[in-house]
């Protein structure tokens, strides 16, 4: 029993995987995930230049490519020309598995899989890619939120300064005025601060 399980696991980890991603950070996150899961035949490239030769030499079983990469059409052309990936199937092995398809598209993953590969062997890899893409998406979102929070703080500081100068208020009073106005107008503090900054720019 145990031996049999080992053989299956070995087969599954034996796959050659090629990751094409222009985003080096995301590629590293996927690479790490695949290696942690025990895949050691993983190749990561950041650009499609010379990809034909690479695929010819590597003969990957699975190719993972970012769905927003316009070079997907180049891959389609390549598959028309090369016989090394005999008949690659785009995206997914199991078309009836709509949940997987949606998860992958939402995450932004597309994959090519060598025809004839059993879906049990590929699914864990796709699931891994999807979850790693999502990790990256979350990082991106957090970074964007952090940036905008920083921007908002800057605007609030500027609005406070303007009010202090123009209305002769203390810092405390200026902040209270901004907050009170935001509450009365049912708007975000940052939006009121932005209006103050914009208005001041036009009036002064």
């Amino acid at each position, binding site marked *: 029993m145990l031996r049999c399980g080992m053989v299956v696991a070995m087969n599954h980890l034996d796959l050659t995987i090629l990751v094409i991603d222009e985003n080096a950070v995301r590629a590293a996150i996927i690479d790490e995930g695949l290696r942690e899961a025990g895949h050691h035949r993983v190749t990561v490239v950041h650009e499609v230049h010379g990809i034909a030769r690479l695929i010819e030499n590597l003969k990957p079983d699975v190719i993972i490519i970012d769905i927003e990469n316009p070079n997907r059409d*180049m891959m389609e052309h390549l*598959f*028309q020309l090369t016989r090394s990936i005999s008949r690659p199937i785009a*995206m997914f092995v199991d078309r009836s598995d709509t949940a997987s398809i949606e998860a992958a598209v939402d995450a932004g993953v597309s994959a090519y899989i060598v025809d004839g590969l059993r879906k049990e062997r590929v699914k864990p890899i796709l699931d891994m890619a999807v979850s790693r893409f999502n990790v990256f998406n979350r990082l991106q979102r957090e970074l964007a939120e952090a940036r905008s929070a920083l921007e908002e703080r800057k605007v609030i500081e500027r609005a406070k300064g303007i009010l202090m100068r123009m209305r002769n208020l203390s810092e405390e009073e200026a902040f209270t005025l901004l907050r009170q106005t935001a509450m009365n107008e049912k708007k975000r503090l940052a939006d009121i601060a932005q209006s103050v900054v914009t208005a001041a720019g036009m009036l002064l």
Partner: protein
Amino acid sequence: MYRMTNVPDSSSNLAAPALGGEPQQKILRAGFIPLMDASILIAAVEMGFAWREGLSIELVRDVSWANVRDRLAFRQFDMAHMLSPMPVAASLGLGSNPSPTMTPFSLGRGGNAITLSTRLFERMQAVAGLGEDASALENARALAAVLADMRDRGESPPTLGMTYPFSSHNYEFRYWLAAGGINPDRDVKMVVVPPPLTSDALEAGAIDGFCVGAPWNMVASERGVGRIVAAKQDIWPSAPEKVIGMRPEWAEANTDTVLRLIVALDAAARWCDEAANHAHLAEILAADRYIAAPVEIIRQVLAGRFSLDAKGNRRVIRNYFTFHQHGANIPQPRQALWIFSQMVRWGQTRFSQQAADAAASAFRPDLYRAALGQLGGHDGDLAPAGSEPDDVFMDGKIFDPAAIEAYVNSFAVRAEENGTLPSALET
């Protein structure tokens, strides 16, 4: 959004499906690629033609034809702006994710052109003594002369870009090259370059020429990096271009919606064809969410006023875009069969009557006529092409859809029996 004043009142005499009382808005998702031949679809939304038929269309901009194909197959799109060879390829099981696809509406004609780098064109002028007003065929022959010269000097062959293996661009580029005596699989290296990147790729020297839709040829010529050497009209004026693709089972289950959609697209196509509306259309298309290109270039392209290069050489192509006239929206089976003939010619598939039937079935004029009545008649459906004086192929051939094998064999340049292919693997 719903600008009544600009809507030509032409649909009232059409057999539009009856709308009982308050129309229930049906929401559809449509994928598109930022190209000017998505105009009809975009105008149907922006000018309220779809709304009037009770349809609310959500347009989703995509980055690759492979994505469009997959998202349609996986039901994320109800329909999509597609290359006309895509439904044909799908019917033949070609490509990496073939899934049943058909088209009931063609998005007009024209729009493509072939651009070569200024460097290559100057060499063509030097080697072949080419004039500034050379024809498409003369240009192709001049390129053949340059290629021979390059071979003699031991230079590596130029790299030429197109958009997708199953694209009008691939077949038109190959048609033009072969008409000049060039074997596209042996004498040059064909690669795929996404349309918005063509101009940059040409400037960077990554490619030496490309065949792509508007406005990208003009973007390159205005920047002074390329010279337009042939337009789609020069190769075959009524060649199919983009279509609205959908899943046959979805169309079957939503017949009423499909018929309404065709009526909306027909009205939008008529609107796009009116020169008086072009300034407005250009404004809409130039927006970031659609094509994101300079409005002035889009206006010039709509008028067919071509800057061939940055030196001031110009050319006006009448009907560079035909959005509606001359039956441009009818998905003619003979067009699907011509696409099939080129697939056979270049070794993408083999000829069989069964395959020809499958290819023809991807174009559905029956749905078009069910929605709009007998506009345009059936004459063009399977008639030979290339014999009308204003619709000739650049090499003067006649395409008879009933004799595809003979047609393919009549080309001096075509794929060899076992395929010449992998020159593109040398990258």
